[in-house]
């Protein structure tokens, strides 16, 4: 069974890693866009917030009959996990950039930075630790939620949990739960350390 645990752990990490990467790739640019168009901000953050409240098992279930992005298996799980990862990344990007001292923004403009330079050289670097905090939250949530992906045949450590529940066998449940908890703690510590390094002094 230990070989199977390793396989599913790797699969679990891939599920979470890929979905967080997608959530970041969507969430950061979208968050930047929202800081430029504050009127859209409430609507988009509201929608992302509502998606977040859908119970995870229900979201996986809802996605099964959906064409293209749905069905049974890994792809559907990635979509669901991305949806959950989006809100923390998005919200922290908006908060992080909005939190940049307006005096610094004006200093950057006064020195002749273009909008793009202001974003890349000042706003994003100064917001980096806050954005990373969002990615960290999304990752930790994602590691937990990904255990449910097994319910729709997407594999991951949830395989052992569902099997253990069905067999009423705590050892099997723990074979999934313990590595998942370990991953969550590890990811939290690792990303926390990166976040501290990025924090502006």
């Amino acid at each position, binding site marked *: 069974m230990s070989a199977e645990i390793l396989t599913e752990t790797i699969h679990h990490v891939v599920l979470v890693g890929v979905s967080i990467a997608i959530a970041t790739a969507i969430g950061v640019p979208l968050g930047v866009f929202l800081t430029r168009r504050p009127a859209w901000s409430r609507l988009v953050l509201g929608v992302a917030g509502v998606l977040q409240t859908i119970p995870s098992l229900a979201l996986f279930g809802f996605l099964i009959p959906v064409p293209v992005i749905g069905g049974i298996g890994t792809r559907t799980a990635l979509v669901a996990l991305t949806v959950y990862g989006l809100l923390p990344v998005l919200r922290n990007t908006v908060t992080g950039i909005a939190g940049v001292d307006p*005096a*610094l923004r004006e*200093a950057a*403009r*006064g*020195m002749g*930075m273009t909008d793009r330079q202001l974003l890349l050289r000042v706003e994003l670097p*100064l917001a980096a630790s806050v954005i990373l905090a969002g990615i960290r939250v999304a990752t930790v949530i994602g590691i937990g939620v990904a255990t449910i992906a097994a319910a729709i045949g997407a594999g991951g450590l949830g395989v052992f949990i569902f099997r253990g529940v069905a067999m009423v066998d705590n050892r099997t449940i723990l074979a999934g739960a313990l590595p998942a908890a370990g991953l969550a703690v590890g990811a939290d510590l690792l990303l926390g350390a990166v976040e501290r390094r990025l924090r*502006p002094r």
Partner: protein
Amino acid sequence: MLDARVAGEPFVEFDGAGLRLPTGKTLLHDLSLAVPEGETLAFIGRSGSGKTTALKLVNALLLPTDGEVRVAGQSTRTWDAIRLRRRTGWVIQEVGLFPHLSVGRNVGLVPELEGWPAARVGKRVEEMLELVGLPAPEYAARYPHQLSGGQRQRVGVARALAADPPLLLLDEPFGALDPITRAELQREFRGLQARLKKTAIFVTHDMREAARVADRIALLAGGALIALGTAATLRASRDPEVHSFFEAGDT
């Protein structure tokens, strides 16, 4: 107006410049004055007098709603704002240094934006830090939070001078410093100006500072120019607002 000493060609001209907000509030009203090349002019006034507004009209951070402001003969409306700002050194209170960039990178920022080769930027950073008394080997790699207030302000001046702009704008640059450091920096600024002879506009609320750093002083109140002249001519003025600034400075 008390005095209109003209030393050279006007480099910055306010021509009936005014700024009204959409709400109808007037921040600056019908300001006309010229800053000749090489002169240091101080805008002095209370909070809300329009002095910072006037300064921001020069580098097009704000555009006038009435009249115009000309830099090197060209209206700020027709200047490419990015070009104008890179040719204008801008010094503000200590918040202006980027906390995530080292001192060296802060100083080299405008040359870097201008696309100077890295070696030339590095050399320039060394020269500038030397100029303001912060030797590069010791200070270039530090971060702003590792410096004292006075050192940060020196870095701010070095940064503003780095791309060798003909024009300097200083918005209460020494406002957050203790009186001793402040006097020291005022003296250093005077010394630098004697050598570099940049056209400079210096915003302050302190008459003593204005008298120390500037050739001429423009006193603003309620968004309007009340008096313009040297410290000596202003001191002789009977205008109560002008007088109150000298009294405040004497205490």
